[in-house]
């Protein structure tokens, strides 16, 4: 019985693939929105320059295109290092932590970002690795030595998760 009580605790456990995928999708949507607004502003500035008869040697839009990777990098690294959460992770109640349970440093956050890129380049296998990894870590987590954990307390009446856990608990004991 005591084990069941512990088992139902969600906060602090490593998060699985589906929750992280939802969080990631939200982050991509947020980044896409920010980039769209930035692109629109860049085009607007270029248009104003053209109307004013100015002819800069390079378009603002071109500069903007080169800054896009940096904007994406800044979004993830800044959020990870400062709070351990991006907007998507905050929405899904997730947090990136290191060994000490604290948010990763800027250095580790950069390594994690590089891991993001590698995971994506390898046909997203690095992300999908979360499904089969014993500690639910993706490649980027292994590289940066980070974990993504649930950072919210399950409701007392959280029926969906509770019923799943009870079913899983029974099948584990049967094994």
């Amino acid at each position, binding site marked *: 019985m005591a084990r069941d009580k512990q088992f139902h*605790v969600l906060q602090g456990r490593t998060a*699985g693939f589906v929750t992280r995928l*939802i969080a990631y999708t939200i982050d991509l949507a947020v980044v896409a929105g920010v980039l769209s607004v930035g692109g629109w502003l860049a085009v607007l500035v270029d248009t104003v320059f053209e109307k004013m008869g100015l002819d800069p040697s390079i378009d603002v839009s071109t500069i903007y295109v080169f800054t896009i990777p940096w904007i994406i990098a800044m979004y993830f690294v800044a959020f990870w290092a400062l709070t351990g959460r991006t907007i998507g992770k905050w929405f*899904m109640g997730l947090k990136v932590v290191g060994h000490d349970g604290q948010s990763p440093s800027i250095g580790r956050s950069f390594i994690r970002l590089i891991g993001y890129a590698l995971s994506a380049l390898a046909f997203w296998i690095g992300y999908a690795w979360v499904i089969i990894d014993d500690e639910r870590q993706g490649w980027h987590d292994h590289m940066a030595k980070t974990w993504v954990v649930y950072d919210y307390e399950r409701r007392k009446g959280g029926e*969906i*998760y509770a019923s*799943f856990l009870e079913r*899983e608990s029974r099948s*584990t004991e049967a094994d």
Partner: protein
Amino acid sequence: MMTDSTDAIPQLPEADPELHKTLVRVISGGVGEAIDRLKDLASELESADADPESTDPVALTTNQAAMIVVGFLSEWPEQIAALRETTQSMTYPIGQLLGVAYRTVAAVAEATGIAGVVASITEPTRVALAEELERLANVGTAEYARGRVLSVHAFERSIDGIVGYLGDSDEVGELVREQTLGITGAAVQEIRETGAAADGLTEGIFRKMLGRDRRPLPPAPVVE
């Protein structure tokens, strides 16, 4: 914006003294006369040549009629007294008394099959009752209209008070905010927990497909 429209409130009509006189006369005279006639009728019925054991339809009807009338007359004074007592505090006791009197006399007339005999008694009662009912209907209509006007004022005053209270009360504002956040929070929590359940389910399916053992459970965090 609330306006003071007291002038628009219709006033209740004054009671008609002539009508009241008529009603009193009907009760003391008409019903009294009906009672007297019914008493006479009862005497006639009691003295009628009717065999109590007879199964003849005519004799049976006569016996039943006699029993009904005698029973009615024996209880009538108490009924009148009880009615007067209970209707003292009512708004329109006369109308109610008339209604009871008319229904009683009509019921007796119908049961005894002597409608023709008592028609002269019931008719003035019925007319007086109809007039009284019409008056009551008019009063009721006026009261209804007045009530509607008053209720609009009362409603506006209530709403003004409630809105003012809601606007001024910090506690109410806090409650509204908490309620809003609570609803949003519950929806987000539902998404999170559904995702968490799907995490384990997806993991279980894939690990089974790949022939891997179930993921070992990490030690539970210490919960104070």
